């Protein structure tokens, strides 16, 4: 059993096909055809990952995404037929960790799910410093002084990647590969949006970031302690 996946999609044929493919890959899929019931099913099944179609009737996929994110950091991968920048950015900003554009190849989807479910291999007790934050990698916690900061696993991974090599400037492409698991350069908006989300949680003043610093024209790096 590799993990439980909640599939929220109104297109029953697609949902069923997704179920077949994921089951074939060793996941345990649960189908939900109605956005209105998505949250209830989420609470009931406690999935390890949510696969969410953005174009749901009734409740908007964006609302479902926000509702789930409000109570859990579980990875959310959205499916979308819309390629417009705005739609994707809105999806990412409402809490999705990653997205897959329809039509996608099943292997691509599985790779995205696997990347999101990949747990950092059990590391020995490791403490990292970034800015004025302390990261306990094994304990999956971030603290400013004694105050813990709640991050989603993705945001945590992003922060750890930057903190591990404070001397290195990370291009968006490198971050995509290390954090999201993309082999080839993909949509760098993913990085931009998530860096913004991360900053809104860890920075004292998100307008003047000190933890995740932008290096103009290149990418991001860890702020100096």
């Amino acid at each position, binding site marked *: 059993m590799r993990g439980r996946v909640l599939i929220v999609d109104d*297109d029953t044929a697609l949902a069923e096909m997704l179920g077949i*493919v994921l089951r074939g890959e060793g996941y345990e899929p649960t189908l939900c055809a109605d956005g209105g019931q998505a949250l209830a099913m989420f609470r009931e099944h406690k999935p390890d990952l949510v696969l969410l179609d953005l174009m749901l009737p009734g409740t908007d996929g964006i609302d479902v995404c926000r509702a789930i994110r409000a109570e859990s950091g579980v990875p959310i991968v959205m499916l979308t037929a819309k390629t417009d*920048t705005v739609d994707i950015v809105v999806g990412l900003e409402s809490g999705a960790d990653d997205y897959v554009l*329809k*039509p996608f*190849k*099943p292997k691509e989807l599985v790779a995205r799910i696997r990347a999101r479910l990949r747990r950092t291999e059990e590391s020995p007790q490791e403490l990292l410093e970034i800015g004025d934050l302390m990261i306990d990698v094994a304990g999956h916690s971030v603290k400013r002084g004694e105050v813990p900061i709640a991050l989603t696993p993705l945001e945590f991974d992003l922060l750890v990647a930057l903190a591990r090599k404070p001397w290195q400037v990370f291009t968006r492409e490198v971050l995509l590969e290390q954090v999201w698991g993309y082999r080839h350069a993909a949509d760098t908006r993913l990085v931009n949006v998530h860096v913004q989300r991360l900053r809104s949680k860890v920075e004292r003043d998100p307008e003047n970031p000190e933890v995740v610093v932008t290096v103009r024209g290149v990418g991001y790096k860890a702020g100096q302690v």
Partner: protein
Amino acid sequence: MALWRRSLQLRVVTTTTLCSLLAIAVLGNVLISQVRDGLLRTKVASSLDEAANGARTSQEALDSADRSAPDVFDTLVPDLVRQLSRGGGSAGTREVVLQRGSGISDPRAPLGRSSFGVDVRDVPASLSAKVESGTGQRWTYTVLTRPSGQQVSALVIGSQVVVPEIGSYDLYFLFPLDKEATTLALVRNALLLAAFGLVILVGGIAWLVTRQVVTPVRMAARIAERLAAGRLEERMRVRGEDDLARLAASFNRMATSLQRQIRQLEDLSRVQRRFVSDVSHELRTPLTTVRMAADVLHDARAGMDPAVERSAEILQAQLDRFEALLADLLEISRYDAGAAVLETEPTDLRIVVRHVIDAMETLADRRGSVLVLEAPDTACIADVDQRRIQRVLRNLVANAVEHGEGEPIVIRVAADDLAVAVAVRDHGVGLAPTDVSMVFNRFWRADPARARTTGGTGLGLSIALEDAHLHGGWLQAWGEPGDGCQFRLTVPRVLGAELDGSPIPLEPSDSRRRRAPVTAGQPYRRIRTPGGVDV
């Protein structure tokens, strides 16, 4: 000069002013000469009368003088002259000259006498001759020199008087015309002033009148320009019911009708674009399902009936093609809707080209073509959307590989101060010059009979062209049958800058025509480019 050509009002005002100036000049001259003639005619008539009177009085005085007195001349004549010159009548002041006639041979006879303001020499000789040739009055004009040196036009009238015991003397009356000259000057000045005023008035009236006509015309021109610039709701103000108001009304009707038609076309095209976009989106979900089903079949094909196995493979391959087509259609519909957004950053195009070459190398290998990169050592940086430029170049290289017949494909990068260019040159079948402008058309094929092997969608170059235009750049093609083609992408270094040239010539230096020595008189061939620029 430019203003002269552009301003109808200026031309009308100037022409009117000049014409009225000419008319007034002619009229003024006629008037002045009429006044002068009138003045002189009166003067001459009264002067002749007075002169005749004077001559008669003198003759009587002379006749009645005491003949026995030995120096009658010396006593009588000065008095007479003084008397005559003093008696100013309606003809104004006068001067008198009494001159010895040429008929007197006695050298002792006195030469003559003249009044104070005149000299004997002021009487023209021609008049003297006439006076002596007969009886009666003779007159002419002359110029009188005053003792002060001032010169005055004058009327001179001569007749003969007989001095007893001596003979006939010529008696001349000179009437200076200074009063008439003053009057004439006064009249002339008044006329000049009036003419000046009149010309200004006429110019002003012309300006006002043309303004009434020109202002609405200018307004129409301005509004037509705004309409042309796309502000379709602009209208002219209609005032009154005159011709200009009718012009404005018709103009507005035309604008309304144009606006309606444009709106209709816009709506139609919006509906159509929306439809293409919606269809493409709607197709995506079922396509995803089919794709996944096909994948499951494809993965399980081993060990199946060979026909089923092959079917699964074909299904898979055609789904790829379907997907590519759908993606391109969506991209095109995004351009058509004007929804394509550039995300630019300063990028070294050499690196982009290298990425593309790395990605295309396997495809080129399969076709037996070598990809050769010719790039300068210095960075070729331009503000571009890397994703789009990469797509353009991938497209150009894929095309070159497909039509390159296994010959080497040269990719050149070059930059100058304003632009960066990438040219992809193949040595394959080439393009007919008539096809050069067609290659960017949607779904266009050089040879419909030729089978597609690499499975392009037929939209690649159209999308590439849109991408180039989005950057404010050019994408142009050169081709010669049997001599291969060259596609050249030129983008400005700074986004929004106007391109006026490319660092790479469109026709490659190794083209057959360039290699051949150019003979004199060989016709110059222009290469049509989709950018509308002749190179």
